[in-house]
């Protein structure tokens, strides 16, 4: 029997299971888009059929990082920018866990940008949700990597001289095998996209537009929005890297012209996940590392038997 019996247990899973019992109430500002992520994620979980105790949610630091406080599951509230390395290693140690990482645009595209690139490149079987409010929320509204050019803040009093980072294009170039954008103002799509992302076997990146009415835009800035899959105006093949790339470029540019385009932009389903790649070359055991310590029959090799002859 597995030492981790929550994993794969047959049970009825409901959205409400992911609401913490008595504490704590979210401290996000009224109207904050972060509520939208929480709601979408809670609704997605019954769809994917994973329970709180087989789920590990790893977050960074920021208003967005508080997600792990308001979502009932195993949680790891890490440090600024480092949710991905923590999360992907947990997945390697126990591939049977459902691993989700989340954080802000500053957290994921700025300070943690290097981890974003490499985690995408490796195609770990996990989900990464970036709360993109185009601002540093928690530290009071400074310019972030996705703030538009010319954006004024206390630390950029003359407006940002930098063009914003293109998160979708970067994600594609880095190697994500599922890339989508959704918005807090579009809860139905958000739930569907989060569900798909979790179900996807590989690194699924969701750029989630979350309005920050306190320091940046309020909800009306993301309305109206267009779901590119529902629109006749956009016709592209999400499995075609070149077409996806072009579409992403357009979507990213349009956001700064006031047009909000959302939807799925790329998916590469046949691509093996990182664990599969590692297993194929004999660098990852069949039995999850985490299981080995609880398996009384596991045979523990010793350096004395395996390696010492090399030194005699």
């Amino acid at each position: 029997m597995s030492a981790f019996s929550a994993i794969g247990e047959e049970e009825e899973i409901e959205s409400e299971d992911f609401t913490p019992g008595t504490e704590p109430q979210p401290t996000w500002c009224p109207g904050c888009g972060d509520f939208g992520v929480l709601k979408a994620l809670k609704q997605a979980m019954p769809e994917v059929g994973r329970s709180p105790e087989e789920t590990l949610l790893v977050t960074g630091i920021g208003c967005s990082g508080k997600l792990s406080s308001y979502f009932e599951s195993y949680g790891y509230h890490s440090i600024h920018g480092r949710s991905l390395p923590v999360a992907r290693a947990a997945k390697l140690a126990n591939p049977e866990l459902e691993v989700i990482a989340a954080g802000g645009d500053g957290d994921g595209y700025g300070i943690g940008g290097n981890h974003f690139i490499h985690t995408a490149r490796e195609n770990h079987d996990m989900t990464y949700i970036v709360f993109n409010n185009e601002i540093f929320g928690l530290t009071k509204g400074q310019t972030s990597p996705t703030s538009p050019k010319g954006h004024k803040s206390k630390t950029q009093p003359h407006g940002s001289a930098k063009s914003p980072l293109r998160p979708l294009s970067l994600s594609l170039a880095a190697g994500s095998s599922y890339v989508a954008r959704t918005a807090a103002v579009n809860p139905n799509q958000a739930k569907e996209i989060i569900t798909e992302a979790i179900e996807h076997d590989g690194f699924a990146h969701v750029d989630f537009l979350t309005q920050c009415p306190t320091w940046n835009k309020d909800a009306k800035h993301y309305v109206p929005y267009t779901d590119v899959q529902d629109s006749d105006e956009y016709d592209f093949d999400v499995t075609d890297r070149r077409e996806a790339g072009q579409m992403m470029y357009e979507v990213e540019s349009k956001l700064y012209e006031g047009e909000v385009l959302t939807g799925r932009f790329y998916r590469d389903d046949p691509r093996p996940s990182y664990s599969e790649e590692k297993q194929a070359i004999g660098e990852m055991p069949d039995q999850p590392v985490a299981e080995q310590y609880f398996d009384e029959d596991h045979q523990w090799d010793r350096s004395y038997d395996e390696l010492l002859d090399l030194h005699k």
Partner: protein
Amino acid sequence: MTENELIWRIAGGSGDGIDSTSQNFAKALMRAGLHVFTHRHYPSRIRGGHTFVEVRASASNVRSRGDGYNFLLALGDSFARNPSEGSVYGNEELKPLSENLDDLREGGIIVYDEGLIDEEAAAELNLEERAEENGWHLYPMNLREMAREHGREVMRNTAGVGVTAALLDIDVSYFEELIRANMPEDIAETNITILNEAYDAVSEQEFTHDLRVPTGDHENEQALLSGSNAIAYAALDEGCRFISGYPMTPWTDVFTIMSQHLPKFGGVSEQVEDEIAAAALALGASHAGAKAMSGSSGGGFSLMSEPLGLAEMTETPIVLLEAMRAGPSTGMPTKPEQADLEHVLYTSQGDSCRVVFAPSNIRECYDQTRKAFEIAYEYHLPAIVVYDQKLQGELRNVDADFFDREPNPDPGTVLTEDELAEAAHHESGKFERYQHDSEKGVSPRSIPGQKGGRFLASGNEHSPTGHISEDPANRVAQMNRRLQKLDSVRSELDAAEESHQTVHGPEDADYGLLTWGSQQDTVFEAVDRLNEQGHSVKAMGVGDLMPYPVAEVTDFLESVEECLVVEMNATAQFRGLTQKELGRFGPKLSSLLKYNGNPFEPRDIVEGFETSIDGGDLPDETMKYVPAAGD
């Protein structure tokens, strides 16, 4: 000069095969019944640059490099950049010979490769004259030609070993066996031909020297290992099945060994984008249930600072290695130093709550790394093993059955699902992972996937279930509990059968030497010499840096009149730590400091001790003596 030992120095360029040749040489002598010890000196370059390795061999135990050496095999640098005289770097081709002469003992032997260092070059060095003055015995041999004739030029080192064997009367079959074991058949046979050709060629000459290799016998089967081997094997034996890292000298060695062996031990190794990630991955793996480690050297360890603090705060067990090299910044990448002590003890914001061990030799590398895992997982904190470029690379023979130990796959203070069902839960259903009052300060953990164990691990200060909390009473309770773990660790270490502090020399000695980490055994050799010379000295090597072994060091310092603290850094960091921890003894403690890129030799310590007693200046201007406070 003591001639019951051989100190053989092989010198050449990086890329000349100095390392592998010296390893085989050391192993052959070990198999011949000798105790061996190697010391590596190399520049941060892949090809060329002056490199040497010393192999010290004796019938009795050797625990340190010696003073100087008595046999030089100068291969000549085949990758020399600019063999012209006027170049900034001087004549590099000649360096393996010219740079090594100062340390060669009187009466020593020189074998050099005439194929690269011709008569003219030798004349330039006044070699004949200097040999006469110092009683050196010169054996110029055309190693290059021998190698070329039967194989390829790179096999010069094999020819050099053949010459060495003949001059010292070592049975070549030891080398033949190793060559056969390590090389594909055709290459092995070529090398063996060269080995024997060289042996025979020199045997025809008349020998002017008396030095022969000492003879010995081992009671038990021996194994030749480096500090890196011992650390890696300890990790494997503790059930470590996850390592993440980013290459950096000298930590790369352990990372490489682990990466090569982990897959067949059923584990996972990850080379990642940077050291912040490396440490964070180890945390993630540990949180999910693996026994995990990471590590780095100087700059890379600096990047681990923030994840290290996260491990302290979330109480995620983790073992980190810090392989020190000379700093600050990139410093001298291939040179040893002990200047990262304070860095390792205090890096990351907030009050430190970690365990730090500094092993001094191969056996301690193994024992203390195992202990580091045991403690990290039992007490839920980061345990750091700090060592250095010297210890990671030096090879030494150890009784093979020293490693015949039981593995320890115990994941530490973790509850099973049955235990979780009985454990304290908040009314919301969350497991109370961080309870205020718990035995020894350790609140048992659960692992994701376990039923009934869900909690939040947070780098923010948190309540018993892990939720962010700034309540003053909770804050103080959590801080006190976390720090209480260090007291518990100290009690456990104090009660253990074997202490990480080692004392050497007569118990009633008047003077003390205090050191830490890799310098210990060199200090012990100096202690023996000082006592032979009529001084009354003993030494203590300290392995526990945090929590500090207050009682043991206090006893030691109370028992001596004065104490010289020996360490490889410029600001006497260990002396500072000792005074801070003990709050006294300032007027008793003086310092001997070396930070020129080379580890101490026993004679440095003998001279340093004499200076501390008699006053005056140190003979070596690149070392520093700092008198005791108030002196």
